[in-house]
Protein backbone atom coordinates (compact mmCIF):
# COMPACT_ATOMS: atom_id res chain seq x y z
CA UNK A 1 0.00 0.00 0.00
CA UNK A 2 2.93 2.31 0.75
CA UNK A 3 4.07 1.85 -2.83
CA UNK A 4 0.71 2.78 -4.24
CA UNK A 5 0.66 5.89 -2.08
CA UNK A 6 4.10 7.01 -3.13
CA UNK A 7 3.32 6.47 -6.80
CA UNK A 8 0.17 8.54 -6.42
CA UNK A 9 2.28 11.10 -4.55
CA UNK A 10 4.63 11.40 -7.50
CA UNK A 11 1.79 12.05 -9.87
CA UNK A 12 0.35 14.76 -7.74
CA UNK A 13 2.82 16.29 -5.31
CA UNK A 14 1.54 17.24 -1.89
CA UNK A 15 1.10 21.06 -1.64
CA UNK A 16 3.64 21.06 1.22
CA UNK A 17 6.38 20.01 -1.18
CA UNK A 18 6.24 23.38 -2.93
CA UNK A 19 6.30 25.23 0.40
CA UNK A 20 9.30 23.22 1.59
CA UNK A 21 11.10 24.00 -1.66
CA UNK A 22 10.43 27.71 -1.20
CA UNK A 23 11.82 27.61 2.36
CA UNK A 24 14.91 25.82 1.11
CA UNK A 25 15.31 28.58 -1.44
CA UNK A 26 15.40 31.12 1.40
CA UNK A 27 11.75 32.21 1.49
CA UNK A 28 10.99 32.38 5.23
CA UNK A 29 7.37 33.40 4.64
CA UNK A 30 6.71 29.96 3.20
CA UNK A 31 7.74 28.51 6.55
CA UNK A 32 5.29 30.87 8.19
CA UNK A 33 2.58 29.16 6.17
CA UNK A 34 3.73 25.70 7.21
CA UNK A 35 3.75 26.69 10.89
CA UNK A 36 0.21 28.08 10.66
CA UNK A 37 -0.95 25.00 8.89
CA UNK A 38 0.19 22.55 11.55
CA UNK A 39 0.68 24.42 14.81
CA UNK A 40 -2.62 23.33 16.35
CA UNK A 41 -1.97 19.67 15.65
CA UNK A 42 1.58 19.83 16.99
CA UNK A 43 0.42 21.61 20.13
CA UNK A 44 -2.33 19.04 20.65
CA UNK A 45 0.01 16.07 20.19
CA UNK A 46 2.51 17.63 22.60
CA UNK A 47 -0.20 18.18 25.22
CA UNK A 48 -1.43 14.63 24.86
CA UNK A 49 2.04 13.22 25.41
CA UNK A 50 3.45 15.57 28.04
CA UNK A 51 0.12 16.34 29.75
CA UNK A 52 1.60 19.66 30.67
CA UNK A 53 0.76 23.00 29.13
CA UNK A 54 4.21 24.63 29.52
CA UNK A 55 5.96 21.60 28.11
CA UNK A 56 3.59 21.62 25.15
CA UNK A 57 4.43 25.27 24.45
CA UNK A 58 8.15 24.48 24.54
CA UNK A 59 7.73 21.38 22.40
CA UNK A 60 5.81 23.32 19.80
CA UNK A 61 8.52 25.96 19.50
CA UNK A 62 11.39 23.47 19.57
CA UNK A 63 9.77 21.14 17.07
CA UNK A 64 9.21 23.89 14.49
CA UNK A 65 12.70 25.29 15.02
CA UNK A 66 14.29 21.88 14.74
CA UNK A 67 12.32 21.12 11.59
CA UNK A 68 13.48 24.41 10.12
CA UNK A 69 17.13 23.70 10.95
CA UNK A 70 16.94 20.15 9.65
CA UNK A 71 14.93 20.90 6.55
CA UNK A 72 17.86 19.86 4.38
CA UNK A 73 17.62 16.39 5.84
CA UNK A 74 13.94 16.09 5.01
CA UNK A 75 13.51 13.52 2.28
CA UNK A 76 10.52 13.89 0.08
CA UNK A 77 9.61 10.24 0.54
CA UNK A 78 7.52 10.96 3.61
CA UNK A 79 5.03 13.75 4.10
CA UNK A 80 6.31 16.93 5.70
CA UNK A 81 3.56 16.64 8.30
CA UNK A 82 4.53 13.08 9.31
CA UNK A 83 8.16 14.13 9.52
CA UNK A 84 7.23 17.11 11.69
CA UNK A 85 5.07 14.92 13.94
CA UNK A 86 8.00 12.57 14.46
CA UNK A 87 10.15 15.48 15.64
CA UNK A 88 7.38 16.69 17.96
CA UNK A 89 6.81 13.20 19.41
CA UNK A 90 10.52 12.85 20.19
CA UNK A 91 10.68 16.28 21.79
CA UNK A 92 7.57 15.49 23.84
CA UNK A 93 8.95 12.19 25.08
CA UNK A 94 12.17 13.90 26.08
CA UNK A 95 10.25 16.41 28.20
CA UNK A 96 8.08 13.71 29.69
CA UNK A 97 11.17 11.75 30.73
CA UNK A 98 12.72 14.83 32.26
CA UNK A 99 9.68 15.40 34.42
CA UNK A 100 9.36 11.84 35.46
CA UNK A 101 12.94 11.05 36.33
CA UNK A 102 13.23 7.52 37.53
CA UNK A 103 9.87 6.59 36.10
CA UNK A 104 10.04 4.54 32.94
CA UNK A 105 8.57 6.30 29.98
CA UNK A 106 8.80 4.16 26.94
CA UNK A 107 6.68 3.75 23.91
CA UNK A 108 8.51 0.83 22.38
CA UNK A 109 7.98 -1.47 25.31
CA UNK A 110 4.80 -3.48 25.16
CA UNK A 111 2.53 -2.84 28.06
CA UNK A 112 1.27 -5.78 30.01
CA UNK A 113 -2.35 -5.09 30.66
CA UNK A 114 -5.48 -6.98 30.16
CA UNK A 115 -7.65 -3.99 30.82
CA UNK A 116 -10.15 -3.47 28.08
CA UNK A 117 -9.01 -6.45 26.06
CA UNK A 118 -12.29 -8.12 26.99
CA UNK A 119 -15.16 -5.63 27.08
CA UNK A 120 -16.89 -5.83 30.43
CA UNK A 121 -19.23 -2.89 30.44
CA UNK A 122 -21.74 -3.95 27.87
CA UNK A 123 -24.47 -1.46 28.63
CA UNK A 124 -25.52 0.51 25.60
CA UNK A 125 -24.91 4.24 25.61
CA UNK A 126 -27.51 6.94 25.56
CA UNK A 127 -28.12 8.38 22.09
CA UNK A 128 -25.69 11.31 21.63
CA UNK A 129 -24.43 10.83 25.19
CA UNK A 130 -22.11 13.85 24.98
CA UNK A 131 -25.16 16.09 24.94
CA UNK A 132 -25.83 15.26 28.58
CA UNK A 133 -22.76 17.29 29.53
CA UNK A 134 -21.73 20.89 29.11
CA UNK A 135 -18.76 21.65 26.83
CA UNK A 136 -16.29 22.23 29.67
CA UNK A 137 -17.50 19.23 31.63
CA UNK A 138 -17.27 17.00 28.58
CA UNK A 139 -13.75 18.19 27.77
CA UNK A 140 -12.74 17.41 31.35
CA UNK A 141 -14.18 13.88 31.10
CA UNK A 142 -12.38 13.27 27.80
CA UNK A 143 -9.07 14.61 29.16
CA UNK A 144 -9.26 12.62 32.38
CA UNK A 145 -10.15 9.46 30.51
CA UNK A 146 -7.37 9.61 27.92
CA UNK A 147 -4.79 10.66 30.50
CA UNK A 148 -5.38 7.40 32.30
CA UNK A 149 -4.09 5.35 29.37
CA UNK A 150 -0.47 4.12 29.35
CA UNK A 151 1.61 6.57 27.22
CA UNK A 152 2.30 3.95 24.55
CA UNK A 153 -1.43 3.41 23.98
CA UNK A 154 -2.32 7.07 24.27
CA UNK A 155 0.15 8.19 21.61
CA UNK A 156 -0.98 5.56 19.13
CA UNK A 157 -4.63 6.49 19.64
CA UNK A 158 -3.92 10.21 19.26
CA UNK A 159 -1.89 9.84 16.08
CA UNK A 160 -4.17 7.29 14.43
CA UNK A 161 -7.64 8.32 15.53
CA UNK A 162 -7.41 11.98 16.51
CA UNK A 163 -4.81 13.26 14.03
CA UNK A 164 -5.72 10.83 11.28
CA UNK A 165 -2.31 9.34 10.46
CA UNK A 166 -2.39 5.97 8.73
CA UNK A 167 -1.23 2.82 10.51
CA UNK A 168 1.96 2.87 8.41
CA UNK A 169 2.66 6.53 9.20
CA UNK A 170 2.04 5.95 12.90
CA UNK A 171 4.42 2.99 12.88
CA UNK A 172 7.07 5.00 11.06
CA UNK A 173 6.66 8.01 13.35
CA UNK A 174 6.97 5.96 16.54
CA UNK A 175 9.49 3.43 15.31
CA UNK A 176 7.04 0.61 15.98
CA UNK A 177 6.09 -2.36 13.85
CA UNK A 178 2.70 -2.33 12.14
CA UNK A 179 1.39 -5.23 14.28
CA UNK A 180 2.48 -3.36 17.42
CA UNK A 181 0.57 -0.25 16.31
CA UNK A 182 -2.50 -2.34 15.54
CA UNK A 183 -2.50 -4.16 18.85
CA UNK A 184 -2.05 -0.94 20.81
CA UNK A 185 -4.73 0.84 18.86
CA UNK A 186 -7.26 -1.89 19.57
CA UNK A 187 -6.45 -1.91 23.26
CA UNK A 188 -6.47 1.88 23.47
CA UNK A 189 -9.86 2.09 21.79
CA UNK A 190 -11.33 -0.59 24.02
CA UNK A 191 -9.92 0.89 27.22
CA UNK A 192 -11.24 4.33 26.35
CA UNK A 193 -14.62 2.85 25.50
CA UNK A 194 -14.73 0.98 28.79
CA UNK A 195 -13.83 4.06 30.79
CA UNK A 196 -16.22 6.38 28.95
CA UNK A 197 -19.03 3.91 29.49
CA UNK A 198 -19.23 5.08 33.08
CA UNK A 199 -20.35 8.51 31.88
CA UNK A 200 -22.22 7.67 28.74
CA UNK A 201 -24.21 4.54 29.47
CA UNK A 202 -27.94 4.74 29.21
CA UNK A 203 -29.33 5.46 32.63
CA UNK A 204 -31.65 2.87 34.07
CA UNK A 205 -35.26 3.83 33.50
CA UNK A 206 -34.32 6.49 30.96
CA UNK A 207 -36.56 6.76 27.96
CA UNK A 208 -35.23 5.29 24.75
Amino acid sequence: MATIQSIAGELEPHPDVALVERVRGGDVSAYDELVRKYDRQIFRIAQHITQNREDAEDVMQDAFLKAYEKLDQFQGNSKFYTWLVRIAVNESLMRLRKRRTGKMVSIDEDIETEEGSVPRDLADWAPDPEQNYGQAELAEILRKTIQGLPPGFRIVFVLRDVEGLSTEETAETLGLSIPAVKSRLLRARLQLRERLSRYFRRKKGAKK
Partner: protein
Amino acid sequence: MTCTEFLALLDDLIDDSVTPETRAELQQHLRGCDHCEVTLSTTRKTIEIYRSHEIYDLPADLRERLHAAIMARCKKGC
Protein backbone atom coordinates in the same frame (compact mmCIF):
# COMPACT_ATOMS: atom_id res chain seq x y z
CA MET B 1 -17.71 -16.81 14.45
CA THR B 2 -17.10 -16.36 18.19
CA CYS B 3 -17.04 -13.07 20.10
CA THR B 4 -13.25 -13.34 20.47
CA GLU B 5 -12.85 -13.72 16.73
CA PHE B 6 -15.15 -10.79 16.22
CA LEU B 7 -13.14 -8.64 18.62
CA ALA B 8 -9.90 -9.49 16.84
CA LEU B 9 -11.36 -7.98 13.67
CA LEU B 10 -13.08 -5.04 15.36
CA ASP B 11 -10.46 -2.47 14.31
CA ASP B 12 -10.40 -3.67 10.73
CA LEU B 13 -14.17 -3.41 10.62
CA ILE B 14 -14.11 0.11 12.09
CA ASP B 15 -11.32 1.18 9.74
CA ASP B 16 -13.13 -0.39 6.83
CA SER B 17 -10.28 -2.66 5.86
CA VAL B 18 -12.03 -6.02 5.65
CA THR B 19 -12.85 -8.04 2.58
CA PRO B 20 -16.51 -8.24 1.59
CA GLU B 21 -16.56 -11.91 2.68
CA THR B 22 -15.23 -11.11 6.16
CA ARG B 23 -17.61 -8.18 6.44
CA ALA B 24 -20.52 -10.49 5.71
CA GLU B 25 -19.36 -12.90 8.42
CA LEU B 26 -18.95 -10.06 10.91
CA GLN B 27 -22.40 -8.75 10.11
CA GLN B 28 -23.86 -12.17 10.54
CA HIS B 29 -22.30 -12.40 14.00
CA LEU B 30 -23.67 -8.96 14.89
CA ARG B 31 -27.21 -9.95 14.04
CA GLY B 32 -27.12 -12.59 16.75
CA CYS B 33 -24.92 -10.90 19.36
CA ASP B 34 -26.00 -7.82 21.30
CA HIS B 35 -22.72 -7.65 23.19
CA CYS B 36 -20.61 -7.25 20.09
CA GLU B 37 -23.16 -4.87 18.58
CA VAL B 38 -22.82 -2.61 21.66
CA THR B 39 -19.04 -2.93 21.68
CA LEU B 40 -18.89 -1.91 18.03
CA SER B 41 -21.26 1.03 18.27
CA THR B 42 -19.77 2.43 21.49
CA THR B 43 -16.19 2.02 20.24
CA ARG B 44 -17.14 3.91 17.08
CA LYS B 45 -18.73 6.59 19.22
CA THR B 46 -15.59 6.80 21.39
CA ILE B 47 -13.45 7.53 18.36
CA GLU B 48 -15.96 10.00 16.96
CA ILE B 49 -16.16 11.93 20.24
CA TYR B 50 -12.39 12.25 20.53
CA ARG B 51 -12.11 13.25 16.91
CA SER B 52 -14.76 15.94 17.07
CA HIS B 53 -13.98 17.57 20.42
CA GLU B 54 -11.03 19.83 20.89
CA ILE B 55 -9.79 18.97 24.36
CA TYR B 56 -6.52 20.86 24.17
CA ASP B 57 -7.28 24.14 22.51
CA LEU B 58 -4.55 26.52 21.46
CA PRO B 59 -5.88 29.97 22.44
CA ALA B 60 -5.44 32.66 19.78
CA ASP B 61 -3.17 34.91 21.86
CA LEU B 62 -0.87 32.06 22.84
CA ARG B 63 -0.80 30.90 19.24
CA GLU B 64 0.27 34.33 18.02
CA ARG B 65 2.93 34.59 20.73
CA LEU B 66 4.44 31.18 19.93
CA HIS B 67 4.21 31.84 16.25
CA ALA B 68 6.05 35.16 16.57
CA ALA B 69 8.76 33.52 18.68
CA ILE B 70 9.29 30.73 16.15
CA MET B 71 9.43 33.06 13.16
CA ALA B 72 11.75 35.52 14.90
CA ARG B 73 14.26 32.78 15.51
CA CYS B 74 13.88 31.31 12.02
CA LYS B 75 14.58 34.69 10.47
CA LYS B 76 17.77 34.92 12.49
CA GLY B 77 18.71 31.60 10.96
CA CYS B 78 17.93 29.83 14.27
